[in-house]
């Protein structure tokens, strides 16, 4: 069953085509990677999927969890918050945590999208509100525990070391209870040890949370280790698609990364 599918998704800025005719599909519980040189349009692809940009043409289709064999829903150009509500969560290339808030609050807020009590019940502190607030806190603490951040719960998010900030961003995305998780260069700026930890971490959360993962990454080691399939983008075009082994041997990919030798 496909979770996400793009059909000819294209994004143009003025005269520049950032992503050209993107056709990807992601199956349930897969880890799929998008790789490509800088400026290949990977983050733009993410932005189209999560609604930050509305594609110039083409479609983004999504299968809601537990919707059986119903047709896929067209989510092209929907507002980001609505897309998050449907179960797609993401992280950012340059970490975007809520800077002035604690680690716990960063995760707590991600529960807001699943909140069931209304504004007035919250303000009047009705029993239902207490219950949902307590549940939220418990869920968030469990989540922080599972990603190894529970000890830091009350520290300011930005006081964490870099690697832990990345982890917190993933935890925050998980707290929205997604079905599909988009990770934008989760290993950027990490040392080999941290990168290895992250690789295991991503594989583990996929199993623990029953996730489907789409990831952008430059670290080939991670990509080759955990991806089921890989898409390669170059100048907005999809130049290759296949299993890690297939991609490693693909001459086009090697050319895109290393450049063609001058004659």
């Amino acid at each position, binding site marked *: 069953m496909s979770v996400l599918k793009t059909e000819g998704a294209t994004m143009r*800025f003025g005269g520049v085509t950032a992503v050209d005719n993107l056709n990807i599909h992601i199956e349930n519980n897969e880890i799929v990677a998008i790789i490509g040189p800088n400026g290949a349009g990977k*983050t733009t692809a993410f*932005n189209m999927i999560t609604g*930050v940009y509305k594609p110039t043409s083409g479609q983004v289709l999504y299968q809601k969890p537990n919707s059986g064999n119903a047709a896929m829903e067209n989510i092209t150009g929907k507002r980001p918050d609505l897309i998050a509500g449907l179960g797609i969560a993401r992280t*950012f290339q340059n970490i975007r945590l809520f800077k002035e808030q604690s680690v716990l609050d960063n995760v707590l807020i991600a529960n807001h999208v699943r909140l069931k009590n209304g504004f007035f019940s919250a303000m009047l502190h009705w029993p239902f509100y207490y219950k949902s607030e307590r549940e939220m806190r418990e869920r968030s603490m469990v989540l922080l525990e599972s990603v190894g951040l529970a000890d830091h719960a009350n520290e300011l998010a930005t006081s964490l070391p870099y690697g832990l900030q990345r982890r917190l961003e993933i935890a925050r995305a998980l707290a929205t209870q997604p079905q599909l998780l988009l990770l934008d260069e989760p290993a950027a700026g990490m040392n080999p040890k941290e990168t290895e930890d992250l690789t295991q971490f991503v594989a583990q959360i996929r199993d623990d949370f029953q996730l489907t993962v789409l990831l952008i990454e430059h670290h080939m080691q991670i990509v080759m280790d955990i991806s089921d399939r890989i898409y390669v983008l170059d100048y907005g075009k999809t130049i290759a698609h296949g299993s890690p082994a297939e991609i490693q041997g693909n001459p086009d990919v090697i050319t895109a990364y290393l450049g063609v030798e001058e004659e």
Partner: protein
Amino acid sequence: MALFWQNVANGLTVGSLYALVAIGYTMVYGILRLINFAHGDIFMMAMYFAFFAISIFYIPWYIAIILVLVATMLLGMLIEKTAYAPIRNAPRISLLISSIGVSYLLENLATVLFTGVPRQFPSIGSLQNSLVIGGVTIQQLAIYTPVVMLILVALLLTLINKTKTGMAMRAVSKDFETAKLMGVNINRTISSTFAIGSMLAAVGAIMWGQKYPQIQPYIGVMPGLKCFIAAVIGGIGNIKGAVVGGLLLGMLEIMIVYAQPGLSGYKDAFAFVALILVLLIRPTGLFGEKVTDKV
């Protein structure tokens, strides 16, 4: 029909004045991304400078004008150095708050220095005299203001497009960091932006005093806001836009009251209505470029 043309002349005068002051807003915004709330008060101070030079110290008007221009220019540069330069790297909202603070300080300062009693602005040369063209009586000001404005704009555009300082200004407004790396002297460029903007505001202030010859410490507030609106209508950061925006707004104000005299009480509200319409329909104004936020 004569009344119609009189109103057109009137609209042109007010519009040209708006344009002169709007350029200051648009230039500062182009470089610092700051609505310089104090710009209207710089305008007010220029009026007082002119008043003192001509009416109190009896300096001939042609010398007085030069003195006023220099004094206003220095004031603008001083404000930038003391209130904006120290917090240039702070969040943009701090800059905005600082400019509101400066505005507040200048108004209070003017109240103490010049008292709140309205003063009569001196008349300069024959600007306030009337002139009859084809049966239509207009002030000479209606001819001079647009001409002066156009000459100054032409000079300014030459400066910006042809000189090194102008190139630096364009570079800084395009990309602050890169311009710095390329060796542009940021401090000097910003200083000259404020100097030019303030000087044009001073010219506007002197001409304004010919049209509405009453000065008090809060005189700059309304024209200031309206000129900012003119800059937004034209597309903020764009000098030609500020000129077109100023002329449009001046015309609009005068002609609506001419067509519907019953609305004269709401005259000051037109600009704000226009602003809100522009922001909703075309937030980048007539000549502005679209900016996409990077994620």
